[in-house]
């Protein structure tokens, strides 16, 4: 079974680039641009990895992360925060909420790839 990556970002161009990169690695991908919608997708089909933006309509990335971690059945689900806010407190906050790692925008492709691979092993 192929690895499934859910990409959550409201910037279409960024989502598009991440989609290309992940598919290039042979992962299945889905893209959503809204926090609430992302949670609905996870409910339907839990991904292996969520690439989660922070600034989102409805629920922001932190809220999405918190709600994921509330659910025991999603304990194996890996969350990688992808945020333009590379500020220390944002990183800390995300990790405290149960995110498994983070990359900051603008990102290097190999960095994102390595982090996702690291989460999957």
């Amino acid at each position, binding site marked *: 079974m192929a690895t499934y990556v859910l990409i959550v970002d409201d910037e279409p161009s960024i989502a598009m*680039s991440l989609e290309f990169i992940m598919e290039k690695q042979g992962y299945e991908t889905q893209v959503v641009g809204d926090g609430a919608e992302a949670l609905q997708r996870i409910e339907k089909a839990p991904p292996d990895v969520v690439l989660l933006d922070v600034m989102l*309509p409805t629920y922001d990335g932190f809220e999405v992360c918190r709600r994921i971690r509330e659910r025991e059945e999603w304990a194996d689900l890996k969350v990688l925060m992808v945020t333009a806010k590379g500020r220390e407190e944002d990183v800390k906050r995300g990790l405290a909420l149960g995110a498994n790692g983070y990359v900051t925008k*603008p990102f290097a*492709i190999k960095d994102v790839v390595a982090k996702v691979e690291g989460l999957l092993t």
Partner: protein
Amino acid sequence: MLQGSLILAVALAYLGLLFAVAYYGDRRADAGRSIISTPYVYALSLAVYCTAWTFYGSVGRAASTGLDFLTIYLGPTILAPLWWLIVRKMIRISKQQRITSIADFVASRYGKSAVLGGTVTVVAVVGIVPYIALQLKAISTSFTVASAYPNAAALTSAGGGAVPLVADTALYVALLLALFTVLFGARHLDATERHEGMVAAIALESLVKLVAFLAVGLFVTFGLYEGFGDLFSSAAERADLQALLTLEPSASVFGEWVWLTLLSMLAILFLPRQFQVAVIENVNEQHLKKGIWLFPLYLILINLFVLPIALAGMMYFPDGTVEADMFVLALPLESGQPVLALLVFIGGLSAATAMVIVATTALATMVCNDLVMPVLLRTKALRLQERTRLTGLLLGIRRSSIVGVLLLSFAYARLVEGHYTLVSIGLISFAAVAQFAPAILGGLYWRRGTHAGALWGLLAGFLVWGYTLPLPSLAEAGLLSPTFVEMGPWGWALLRPHALFGLEGLSPVAHGLFWSLLINGGLYVGLSFKTQPTAVEHSQARAFVDALPVSSRAAVWRGQASVTELRQLLQRFLGYRAATQALERFAESQGINTTEPGWEDAVPANAHLMHHAEQLLAGAIGSASAHVVVSSVVNAEPLSLAEVMEILDETQQMMAHSRELQRKKHALEEATQRLQAANAQLQELDRLKDDFISTVTHELRTPLTSIRAFSEIMHDNPDLSAEQRQEFLEVIIKEEERLTRLINQVLDLQKLEAEPMRLQVEPLSLRTIVNEAVQAMSQQMENASVVCTVQPPGPGPGTVEGDRDRLKQVLLNLLSNAFKFCDDTDGRIFVTLRGRANEVQVDVADNGPGIDREARASIFERFQQARPRARAGASGSGLGLTIAQRIILEHDGDIWVSSPPGEGATFSFTVPRAQASTPTDDPGPLGDGASATPDTAGSAGSPITSSDS
């Protein structure tokens, strides 16, 4: 036998010499080099106390009653040590209060009362005029005796009184002395009423009279007899003289001595001339120290030969051909010693003139300052208040007073001539000035003494004095019926002037002194308790009673207090440490072992410790409060009114001080509040700046991320299809455009905020601008199938005044905002223009999801993303609406948003008509916009979903 003309010439020469001395003294004083600034001159000037009464009269009294003449000198001698307390205090007060006479002194103490000053003056004049008369009489008599001796007829006539007025030597003496007194005491005016030249002359006269008296005494004792032993043993052989040599140890004699001693004690303090030389003319307080023993020494010397001369006179003139008062002069004449007689005459002249000059000067000052001037100043018709220079008038009054006093004295002398000995008249004068004692002594040491007490006491005492002393003397002089004295008025024995209320057995002087002082003092104390002092009296009472420095206060604490009590007090106000230190120092000075427990209970606090405690407390709570607090443990007297006033004063000052502090505190608080507000504003601005920067960087990162990602993708994937490559490149270009737009808008906003907007104002048609803006957006909208309608069709609503480019920017921002948020599939935008009387309104409406109420409030803030973006790929800086708002406000227009539920959002703005305003001159609310509603600007944690415009 001496020639009258010779005596006259010598006397005039002597007076000339005195005047020269006085003149020299005044000149030196003016030059600042005083010749009287030595305790010796001061002590000699005090000897003005010894008048012709001493010089001639003591011998007379000794010849008739023996040793009791000494009482007049015993009093001052006994009192002298106390001068350091009493006279020094009077000197201190007089310097502080610029006192010019004893009347001034009393008036000043009791609230600067003119009535009291006038009363004292009247009492002094009435009391002293007979005394001056007596001096005139002494001079004329001595002149007659010296020039006519041994002509018995002349001697008799000297005591007679049948001489016609023009032939009366005393008249010429009076006029001559008036001239000299004017020259000595009223040549010019001195603000301090000090007469250095006069004092110098007086001192010289004191020396001369002492030398003259000692000379005659030595001559009599060692010339006529062979020393004291010979003289006294000769006298002892005469039965009639034995009484003079013994003191009768009876109660009445003892009483008489006590009364006379007391009388002279008061006289030395309160005789106007003594007050003049001892207080007013005092140059230096320290001179008192020598005066205290030099003056009694002088008295002893001048009295040394009184009894020998009296005894010798009685033996030489047993038949009474020569009055005892003239023994001093008659003995050298009888013994053929004209030079010595001349010296004696000059000595007597010195004694008399010194007294006359000083007393008259003092009286004239009082008459002028305390009697005439107050009346003149109150007589409005004279308009004296308006005159600037009163010097001439004052000198005139002063000189007239001198002449008046001397003529009055002469008249009195004529009236009672021959009926009284020198000493008797002198004692009556003493008793008159003794009436000042309650008011002055009370005033110096008793704060409670009031004006009413002083005035009525003095008046009553004066009346009793007049009734018991001068009135009977008039009767004895034959001017009143003698039955008045013997039987009392209308036969009322209780009112007999020499035995008032049945008091008998006292001499007339002692009797009069007793009653007058009793009534005077009683009224003074009684009325003082009954009446309330005025404010001026209060302050004056304090100034007088507290005139000497506080150091004497230590002695005030006479009560009992324990060290423990004082410790508690000190601890309460100063704390444990300071209290312990103070007490340990005290214990050390007392040699007490402080390691022994309970020593504080065992040892009573002494005055020094209490004083020390008071001083320590005064530092903490003020002197008045300290005094009260210490009193509370010292079982002291109850609070005096003055002390209460003092405390009130201090409290008042402290309250004023506290009010001032309160006011300052309030001002400080206000300033602090303003500072805090300013600081909060600055912090807010700082936070906004931080938010702005972080939002801007975030907005910058987003396109950068896309550009970076796709560049890398294309770099790493050379095998990409041409379509994919094309698509990715388009993304890169679009994101780059977004980046550029963002940067431009940030710069725009920065410019708008940094400086007043410069509008290029011109009349323009909004309809044209709307069309241009719609045209600019048309391609973009067409691509997205968004339909934009401008209503109403046809010509616009007229012109407005505005900046074409700025207004177009507003419309572009609003249109692109509407474009972004209008419905995804069936996007519609409506632009409506409405013309009104003084403005044109433009509405830009979309059919998107609308904006909720909360978001509407802050929609114009920077980077406010209020609603989820409807159109994918539409992006903005978050600054468009902010910029639009700035521009419209600068045009004096209005901009707002409305969003009825389910109807999308409508942004509206107005621009005034052409004539309505001149927006360029108005700096407008430009800088305020950023902080107008700062609480909603970019608040962290709020869901930021998109940028608008």
